[in-house]
């Protein structure tokens, strides 16, 4: 178990390192680093001074080491637009994105598991079939379009929910959160639903497949033969078997959800880091772009690592195999 974890950690570090190389090469070799790192308004003398200052006259490998050194110390340059350290800028926007992504993941379980359970228990019913057909749409529809339709129907036509923004926020641990106010929750509902649509479909299908697979098992028949209530059989014996793969997949999807928040945040003008990166790409605010990419890669690899470890802890069978 311990050697396995060390190996896994080592792998993760390697991927992070590989990604820094890719980003570095991308920004410093393919693009012109002078354009990227120096504000276009700088004059000739200042350019020369900054080039020397940044070590851009140095050989590439040394430049990479400088870059790595800076990155480790949290220095990824200043935003041209906001004139703030890029990392601090992104860190400030991160809670909004995390809040949205975590809510979306919760949504995917709250909607996906019951719907999938129903479709699995009554596969031939009208509602069961409808749910399955709907899940195909959930997979194939571009999420920005669904977001627009949500706004059109619920904000413009019906006027039930606010269309854009984060609403009123409340401070907790020095960070602004939307989920602490009613207005914030109202603002969060549509974006979170939009972001979770793909995951709802995914969880729904997983749950349904799990139910279909588990129901004919002898241990379910034995549980019934013990005289347990149908509720106990379904919610304990069936669901416990299904929740392990569902939780794993949902956990793995958290990273994707954060990445896809880029789209949802743009549609709903949600002031998270996804919105920031799109704005930054559009105005070529490269330090922010680099900082975002590094940040999200790190986040991603951390999530994968944590889910892997959680998985072994959750499933008694896997746990034993790794011990043995």
């Amino acid at each position, binding site marked *: 178990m311990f050697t396995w974890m060390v190996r896994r950690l080592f792998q993760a570090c390697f991927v992070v390192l590989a990604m820094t190389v890719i980003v570095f090469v991308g920004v410093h070799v393919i693009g012109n680093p002078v354009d990227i790192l120096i504000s276009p308004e700088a004059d000739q003398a200042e350019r020369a001074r900054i080039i020397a200052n940044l070590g851009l006259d140095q050989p590439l490998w040394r430049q990479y080491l400088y870059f790595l050194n800076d990155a480790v110390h949290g220095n990824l340059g200043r935003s041209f637009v906001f004139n703030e350290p890029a990392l601090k800028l992104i860190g400030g926007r991160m809670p909004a994105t995390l809040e949205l992504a975590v809510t979306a993941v919760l949504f995917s379980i709250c909607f996906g598991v019951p719907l999938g359970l129903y479709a699995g228990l009554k596969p031939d019913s009208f509602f069961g079939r409808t749910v399955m057909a709907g899940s195909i749409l959930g997979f194939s529809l571009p999420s920005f379009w669904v977001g627009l339709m949500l706004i059109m129907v619920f904000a413009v036509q019906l006027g039930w929910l606010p269309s854009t923004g984060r609403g009123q926020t409340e401070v907790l641990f020095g960070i602004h959160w939307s989920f602490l106010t009613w207005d914030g929750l109202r603002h969060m509902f549509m974006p979170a639903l939009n972001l979770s649509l793909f995951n709802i479909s995914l969880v729904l299908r997983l749950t349904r497949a799990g139910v279909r697979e588990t129901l004919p098992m002898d*241990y379910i*028949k*034995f549980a*019934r033969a013990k*005289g347990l*209530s149908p509720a106990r059989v379904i919610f*304990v014996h069936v669901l*416990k078997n299904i929740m392990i793969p569902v939780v794993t997949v949902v956990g793995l999807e958290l990273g994707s959800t954060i990445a896809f928040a880029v789209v949802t945040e743009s549609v709903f003008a949600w002031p998270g880091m996804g919105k920031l990166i799109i704005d930054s790409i559009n105005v070529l605010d490269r330090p922010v772009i680099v900082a975002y990419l590094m940040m999200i890669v790190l986040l991603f690899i951390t999530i994968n690592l944590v889910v892997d470890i959680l998985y072994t802890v959750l499933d008694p069978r896997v746990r*034993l195999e790794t011990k043995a």
Partner: protein
Amino acid sequence: MSVTLEVRNLRTHFHTRGGILKAVDDVSFSVEQGQVMGLVGESGSGKSVTGFSIIGLVDPPGRIAGGQILYRGQDLAKISEREMRSLRGNRIAMIFQDPMMTLNPVLRIDTQMIETVQAHANVSKAEARTRSRDALGMVGIPSPEERLNSYPHQFSGGMRQRVAIAIALLHNPDLLIADEPTTALDVTIQAQILAEVQKLAAEHGTALIWITHDLSVIAGLADRIAVMYAGRVVESGDAASVLDRPLHPYTHGLIGSVPSRNKRGEKLRQIPGMTPSLLSLPPGCAFRTRCARATAACGQEPPEESPETGRMVRCFHPMEAVSA
């Protein structure tokens, strides 16, 4: 002695695409308190479906199409699901063939036992746990207190079957249906389990229905035997006389197929052909296509006849005439 269970003209049919499959077709037998009833037949003869019919766990497309299942005079085919549930695992219990599959792999043993206790007895969790521990000790599981905290995969096959038996006997049932519980086990373990169940059933006066395809298992265990073929009981009677003087050619063939130490060197006799598909049974006696004694008369339905007290046979040409 009082009759615990009497099955009268039971019919359990499966409505499949290929037509109505008569898995159990006009089956009658009875079991008295403390008695062991052996239900013998090849796979597909309907013996397991008979068991599931009694405990009310026939799943669609199957359903009980007719007949009575009288448990202490109460017809189980008529009572509500709720009433049936209060009997299941309480007064009537069942153990299954494959011990690897009968326990839920993701739930600990204590969970699976305590829920059974609490399903039928209004006791505290601690009390339920104590009872579970005692039950484990009773079926010969060493250090039951620690084993309660284990998961099923931490047990061997034989141990798992013991756990299943302990669960089935938690409420000292009046009737235990054992559906080939030793088939999947090693021979030595098989004998232990056999002896264990016999002992426990005798102690509590539990009536036992032992379903098997293996006559040698039933020989030393059963008081009465019913032989099933293609959904029907073709012969029944007390164990000794059925085994010594089989009347039906099928029973005779079955006994001949058992390899025996005494008949070493002799050629094993075998029943030619295969069990017919229940969807395309020949009219009349279902066995006639494999029977050496079949005549034109066998195209008619053979009636139940009782050539001597306590015996029944469905055959126009029984093996021996009524002997003195």
